[in-house]
């Protein structure tokens, strides 16, 4: 009984962290068909922003939920203005340029923070279920992921900005013809996507020791989750995060964490071979 509860929580946690890791990338890709390979470094910067803010005496939750997204959102905005807007419509070129940016950010972080591991302690204590110890922070991550998905859905479905965003996702040329400046939409989108990356990085920061190259651990997973998700933003994100989280946890419990990671990657290869355009090109068509 206890063990199945623990497994359930671990499973949900794995899915939730994939959702968190991928949300920022998914927003940018879904709206702008831009793959931001500096996404991992945006998360890394979110982590550093949090730690720096905490060291300056800011409450840890404010640092994670407000300071980090804002800081990284602004960095994203600068990046969009300086680099990415010159490359719209050139998928591969934006990937290359953002890959270059990721190296720049790693270099900058190394020069500022040094090549050493920094971290903060988890702000929520663990507790015991029967014989097992559960990390209370995992619940926090699950809750944040659920809130995030609900919030994204509500914004896209219920607000005027969301309506414009959905229109742009469908037909960016039509949205432009209707008088919505794609330039401003893209700016706003990239800001939101970056802020989400910063949020994810901040929330995951207490779990991992942060180094300037931490982003590399996230980007591949996020990239895979988003591409495997396919054209629908939220349905794609949730369905592929669920599939991958499930597969990796099954193998983690059955064999080992390394095999769990490898299983996730193998699952991605098989999935893309079977559904080259992603899960939501076949299922949940037309959903958000």
């Amino acid at each position, binding site marked *: 009984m206890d063990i199945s509860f623990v497994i359930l929580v671990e499973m949900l946690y794995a899915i939730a962290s994939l959702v968190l890791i991928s949300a920022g990338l998914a927003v940018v890709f879904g709206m702008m068909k831009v793959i931001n390979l500096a996404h991992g470094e945006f998360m890394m910067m979110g982590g550093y922003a949090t730690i720096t803010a905490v060291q300056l005496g800011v409450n840890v939750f404010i640092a994670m939920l407000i300071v980090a997204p804002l800081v990284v959102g602004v960095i994203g905005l600068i990046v969009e203005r300086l680099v990415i807007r010159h490359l719209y419509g050139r998928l591969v070129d934006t990937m290359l340029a953002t890959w270059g940016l990721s190296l*720049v950010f*790693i*270099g900058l972080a*190394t020069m500022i923070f040094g090549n050493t591991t920094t971290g903060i302690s988890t702000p929520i204590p663990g507790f015991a279920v029967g014989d097992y110890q559960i990390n209370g922070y995992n619940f926090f991550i699950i809750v944040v992921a659920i809130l995030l998905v609900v919030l994204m859905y509500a914004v896209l479905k219920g607000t005027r900005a969301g309506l414009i965003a959905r229109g742009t996702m469908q037909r960016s040329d039509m949205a432009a013809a209707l008088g919505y400046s794609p330039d401003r939409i893209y700016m706003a989108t990239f800001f939101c996507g970056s802020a989400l990356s910063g949020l994810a990085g901040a929330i995951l920061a207490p779990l991992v020791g942060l180094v300037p190259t931490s982003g590399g651990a996230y980007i*591949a997973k996020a990239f895979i989750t988003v591409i495997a998700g396919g054209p629908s933003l939220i349905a794609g994100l949730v369905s592929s995060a669920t599939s991958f989280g499930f597969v990796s946890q099954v193998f983690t419990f059955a064999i*080992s964490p*390394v095999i769990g990671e490898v299983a996730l*990657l193998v699952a991605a290869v098989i999935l*893309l071979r079977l559904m080259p355009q992603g899960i939501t090109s076949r299922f949940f068509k037309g959903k958000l």
Partner: protein
Amino acid sequence: MDRSAVRDVIVTLVVSAILIGVMPMLISTYTLTVLIIYGMLGLSLGLIWGFGGILCFGQAAFFGLGAYVYAISAVNVGESTLPMILAVLLTAGFAALLGAMMFYGRLTDVYLGVITLVVTLILFKFINSTAGPQYVIGKARMGGFNGIPGFQTLNVPGDPGAYIWGDAYYYVCAVALIIVYLLVTWLLRSSFGRIAIGIRENETRMALIGYDVAARKTVLFAAGAGIAGLAGALYASWAEIVTPTLFSLGQSAEIIIWCIVGGLGTRLGPIVGAAGLAYLKFLLGQQSMIDNTLIMGLVLVIFVLFLPRGLVPAIGALWQVSVGHKVRRRPARRMRRARNG
């Protein structure tokens, strides 16, 4: 046509003979050797990306695979000839399987990128986790993160005692690169190469003409991987140790940067880009003022934004302007399509 081919070969041989002779006066042969190996690695991606339109985010996987195949078989065989051949063939075979899976599944651009990236990660994670004593292939312990040291390095074929190292190894690598370069030249001039370029330009049309696009892309992909495998084996023999970092994403990123900076759609560009940037990185490594990852990143961003054709085509265009020929705008467009097509 044939006369221009002969001229091409002669120019290649003369220029490279001069370079082989002159370069050791400027840079130590030990460093030059690895620059040459990187040049070969750059050429391998330049072939499949620049001429086949296949963007591979995992060229490092083939490089690492070649290195590991060489190391493992060298430990077992105790001689270097067979391991060298195996490194090329097994890597090409692996790529053929992977390529067939991708191309017959009609995967393109970004999806291709994801798969090749993922395969690189799988290899990286798997080899990293092989630290235990149970991971043994023949006499070779995989060694996990620590890699495999102490294998037989290159020797005169048939005589395991006669190691080829130092200056001699430099000449061997240089000749190997020239041979590979001439082979690539021949391949691109052949019908196969011209058909590959046709496929890069328009897959649908080539299929409607009657070409089996998936099969041809698979073969080209395998050929590029074979070259990367050879580069990996030569690297293993140079470094005398192989570690999982050969498979890292950073390594893959660097190969892509070399191609962009040097110039896609040319044979020379990726080689020049690879050797040039690797040497730049070597020089930057000797100072600690500025982080060299930062420089590499800036170089990539700047080239994508301002000189997307790369150095070699740009210099070629300048040269033609200054000599007074009409500038051919073709390479520019070929490039753009190769990357975004």
